[in-house]
């Protein structure tokens, strides 16, 4: 199928069949919208989105397995579609969304409210680098995860392990187990196996703690463990896409393509 120049590609996920039907029905009635996927949980939409990212994701938050928030955590900050949360959350959550300029639809919503959200997504510049940071701080406020102040000393590297403090819990992450890392506002997301750890840190601070021969920067906000890359494909405009196993694919910006030169020989 040919996609119009202005056509907005959309994937949606909601665990309730009636909610999916309703969203699909609303989208069908709108011009220049192409629904490229409709999914019943977070895991499915994440997989599809990584394989062929659309311009917009409409995500229910409370889903079995991966929640809407979990899906966001696992997407590359430098390669984010626009996101609208559709949620039945209370006023407290709405405050967190408003505060962080996150688009949401409060269920139940009507077609007028829906049309406004879609129009906003259509006119937004894509790949807004601040989006993931805003989404994560909103989700942490809603889940009442307390952020401790930045600390220079606590996340020390000790015998190849990194102490990752997330709220009250501290987890020791083996540095060589880290697959990739991306920055989202005040947070760094460490992707380790299937898990994503979130810590308060800056890119610079974290890079200093990771061995430079393994961890290289491939985008403004993305670091990859070069040993985890299983294939490289070249995109247009001097960009590349890295495959990490079957699950993860990451975009390399042309400004950082030198980082992966060793992989291309």
């Amino acid at each position, binding site marked *: 199928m040919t996609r119009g120049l202005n056509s907005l590609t959309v994937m949606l996920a909601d*665990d*309730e069949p009636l909610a999916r039907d309703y969203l699909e029905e609303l989208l069908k009635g709108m011009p220049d919208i192409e629904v490229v996927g409709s999914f019943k949980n977070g895991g499915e939409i994440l997989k599809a989105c990584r394989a062929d990212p659309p311009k917009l994701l409409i995500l229910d938050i*409370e889903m079995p397995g991966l929640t809407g928030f979990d899906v966001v955590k696992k997407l590359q900050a430098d390669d984010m579609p626009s996101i609208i949360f559709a949620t039945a959350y209370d006023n407290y959550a709405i405050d967190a969304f408003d505060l962080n300029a996150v688009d949401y639809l409060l269920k139940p919503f009507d077609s007028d409210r829906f049309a406004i959200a879609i129009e906003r997504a259509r006119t937004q510049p894509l790949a807004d680098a601040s989006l993931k940071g805003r989404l994560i701080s909103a989700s942490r406020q809603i889940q009442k995860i307390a952020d401790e102040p930045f600390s220079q000393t606590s996340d020390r590297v000790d015998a190849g392990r990194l102490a990752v403090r997330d709220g009250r819990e501290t987890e020791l992450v083996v540095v060589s187990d880290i697959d990739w890392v991306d920055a989202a506002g005040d947070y760094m997301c460490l992707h380790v196996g299937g898990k994503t750890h979130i810590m308060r840190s800056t890119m610079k601070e974290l890079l200093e703690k990771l061995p430079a021969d393994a961890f290289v920067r491939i985008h403004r906000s993305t670091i990859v463990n070069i040993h985890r890359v299983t294939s490289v494909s070249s995109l247009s405009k001097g960009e590349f896409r890295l495959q990490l196993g079957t699950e993860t694919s990451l975009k390399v910006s042309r400004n950082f393509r030198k980082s992966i030169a060793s992989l291309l020989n």
Partner: protein
Amino acid sequence: MINKLSEFFRQSLRAEPETEVTVSEEIAMTELYLDIEKTRFADRLTVDIQVADTAKFRMVPSMILQPLVENSLKHAIALSESGGHIRIVASESESDSGGLLLKVEDSGPEASDRGMRQGAPGSSLGLENTKARLTAFYGDAGCLRIEQADLGGYSVLVEIPAHGAGRLQ
């Protein structure tokens, strides 16, 4: 769907907290509630209901099952990508007391995994209310206990003195 919703609301408004209904009536109400929830969960929710003939006309507090089923939906079905199973049983108690046993059990997650979720807002409120109602109705003769279910998850058992068999309300 709208008919079922309005029927459920009508019945639940009619159901005074201090009234008793027959097991058959209580099961019918629970089925109505489950039918509504099935539109949310679709094929992720399967249910079986077993009512012993001897239990059908025993009396139970109205809406005693609904919060228990709601717990199972919330903790077992809603959290699982593939969904799960809920079993509702009404039978004569196996103990010597000769009481009536109501059981709501689900396919998981295991009780030990649910403990980690405790402390979340609203947790165990349904069970506390149910216990309080049983005490109000039957004093020490009514009890509620939780076991590991054969299905893999929680099993909530309510045991009350058998009464009202075959009696007209």
